[in-house]
């Protein structure tokens, strides 16, 4: 029999924080500024509120179905057939996010560090690391995030401190020139990315204090939103709204601006290593969730035999689904937010309402 793996609340927080910030510090912030303009920070705040509301639902479901993750309680609520369909939707969603994120990381590395290296090789390397970590188990992943998360947060805080003097406050004014539509629709956009931490539904049953699920998510999403709001405000403040909206990677461009007394320069590579590490850990979490979901839906005793086949699917989708980086960005900007909202919010709220109506 497999040993039950347990994570602490602290690890829970750092895992969620790593997931939220790794995705949003890649290409997403530029897109948010492109859409919401100077009010991008306001979009992040509204998304934070909506995500906390969503966390209440996930936290409640975790307590209502103790010891079960969202794949398992989907089957408890909807029965074997429809429950398995719902569980597979969650699995394929995590798989899609892993593909999308690894492709984004590959794009970033290919554009910035290794322009002559084939994209497939970069993606393969990332997935091999992920596969190794997933095989080691969630406790190993959690410990890695517990180390990497604080380093990532400190690097982001240092970035904010060093860049703040370069901000031209006039670039941030005036606010709400186009009304409320840009920042409200922008909040839906950023919510779909912050909402990836619905993976909390997978962590709650393995947390040593299951009742802390909501608190963990609240803490992680609050720190994550602070980082996102600060980065978009700095991006607009330093580059101006037009230029920041057209930058593929705002965080990366900001780190390039750091120059302390002509001595400390070009620190972007350090930040990049940390950001890529966090990105790969996020992919690892997604692959873990997808393979565990598949194994529980099928009824296997362990998810470990399914890790490499799951990675194979994610890798193939990551490579062949987008012919160019523009297609990837188009998908991330125009299509992904709806898929994210349907699965992260729609499916879970449907399960929540059904559980109450059927008194499960």
């Amino acid at each position, binding site marked *: 029999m497999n040993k039950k793996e347990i994570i602490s609340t602290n690890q829970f927080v750092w895992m969620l924080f790593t997931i939220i910030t790794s995705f949003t510090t890649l290409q997403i912030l530029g897109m948010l500024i492109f859409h919401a303009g100077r009010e991008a920070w306001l979009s992040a705040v509204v998304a934070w509120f909506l995500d906390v509301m969503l966390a209440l639902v996930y936290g409640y479901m975790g307590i209502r179905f103790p010891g079960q993750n969202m794949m398992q309680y989907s089957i408890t609520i909807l029965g074997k057939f429809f429950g398995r369909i719902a569980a597979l939707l969650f699995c394929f969603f995590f798989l*899609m996010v892993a593909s999308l994120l690894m492709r984004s990381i590959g794009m970033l590395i290919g554009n910035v560090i290794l322009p002559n290296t084939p994209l497939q090789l970069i993606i393969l390397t990332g997935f091999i690391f992920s596969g190794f970590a997933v095989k080691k188990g969630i406790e190993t992943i959690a410990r890695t995030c517990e180390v990497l998360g604080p380093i990532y947060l400190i690097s982001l805080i240092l970035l904010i401190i060093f860049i703040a003097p370069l901000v031209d406050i006039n670039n941030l004014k005036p606010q709400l020139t186009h009304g409320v539509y840009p920042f409200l629709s922008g909040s839906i956009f950023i919510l779909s990315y912050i909402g990836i931490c619905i993976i909390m539904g997978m962590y709650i049953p393995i947390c040593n204090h299951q009742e802390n699920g909501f608190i963990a998510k609240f803490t992680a999403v609050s720190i994550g939103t602070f980082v996102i709001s600060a980065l978009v405000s700095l991006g607009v403040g330093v580059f101006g709204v037009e230029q920041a909206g057209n930058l593929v990677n705002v965080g990366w461009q900001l780190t390039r601006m750091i120059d302390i007394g002509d001595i400390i320069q070009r620190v972007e590579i350090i930040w990049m290593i940390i950001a890529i590490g966090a990105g790969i850990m996020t992919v690892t979490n997604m692959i873990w969730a997808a393979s565990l979901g598949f194994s529980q839906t099928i009824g296997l005793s362990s998810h470990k035999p399914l890790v490499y086949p799951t990675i194979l699917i994610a890798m193939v989708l990551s490579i062949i689904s987008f012919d160019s980086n523009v297609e990837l960005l188009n998908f991330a900007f125009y299509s992904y937010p709806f898929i994210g909202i349907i699965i992260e919010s729609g499916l879970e709220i449907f399960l929540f309402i059904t559980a109450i109506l059927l008194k499960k």
Partner: protein
Amino acid sequence: MLLILILIFTAISFFEAISLAGKNQRKEVISIIILTALGISFAVFKVFNIPTPIVVLKSLFYPLGRMVFRNH
């Protein structure tokens, strides 16, 4: 290149399946075969220009996305 990557992962999955077959874990072996076949078939679909699920989802939601985002 993609073919090589697929072969690498198929080989890893194959060896894993062999060890599980030795332990008489049929359900696990069948699951590995199905998921590996799914991964390979997505790559084969590409050759015949059959879209992957991500491409299908992209074309499904793209018009809606154009209406909602950056439309002000």
